[in-house]
């Protein structure tokens, strides 16, 4: 029989060795919602579903710091740059 400490040790190592643990208080409705996502197979656990939400918030925060909001703003910004390359890849010929 594995001890509780060993199970935690294994879980932490599997996750890369540096995972933090936090407990979250949820309403019945919130918990049920997350459980349903797991039952539907969208996430492997409640923890994974919560992490997906956290990643989305992190992404939103990063995007809020970007200097552009639209594709045309990006294009306009980089249009001023002196081109050293053409297109996505450098134009090149291979020996046949």
């Amino acid at each position, binding site marked *: 029989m594995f001890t509780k400490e060993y199970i935690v040790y294994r879980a932490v190592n599997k996750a890369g060795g540096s995972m933090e643990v936090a407990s979250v208080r949820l309403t019945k409705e919130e918990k049920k919602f997350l459980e349903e996502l797991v039952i539907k197979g969208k996430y492997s656990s409640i923890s994974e579903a919560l992490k997906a939400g956290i990643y989305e918030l992190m*992404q939103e925060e*990063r*995007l809020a710091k*970007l*200097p*552009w909001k639209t*594709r*045309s703003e*990006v*294009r306009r910004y*980089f*249009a001023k*740059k*002196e*081109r*050293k*390359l*053409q*297109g*996505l*890849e*450098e*134009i090149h010929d*291979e020996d*046949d």
Partner: protein
Amino acid sequence: MMKTINCYLESSSIWNLYYEENESSLIEYCIENEQIICISSIWTTLEIARGIKKRVNQKEITNEEGNLLQLFIEADLEKLRKKRRILLENIKEEDIERAKKIIQQYNLYASDALHLATALNKKCEIFIVDDYHFTRLEEKVTKNEKITIYSTSKTPEELKKKLQ
């Protein structure tokens, strides 16, 4: 029922959405139009990452600008993906096998062959690339395959007619 067509966006055409001086109205039209199913390969994201890095290496853009551009493109593609405006296909063994045959048949580069194989396996009718790729592919491919190669500089008019 609404007529739809599968349209493959090669990485150079997606790059055109974010970086090129002359924006392609054709690509924006495809992205916005519900009748067009835009398809590309997950490989495109890697080619774009390399395209950004090359510009940093050449000092065309700064490292900071490169990071911001990468972040913007990733987020925008994710948004388009969630809205089902673009499908980024995983690379499958059948794509690789078909790409090998394409390399033999048309003497294409591996990357071009992989894009074309994915497009043909996904039954795309249109394959959009930038001008440089267009001249490389058009003559070789259009004659033999059931796919039409469009250049990003083409206007959306022809595509509009196809959808009627």
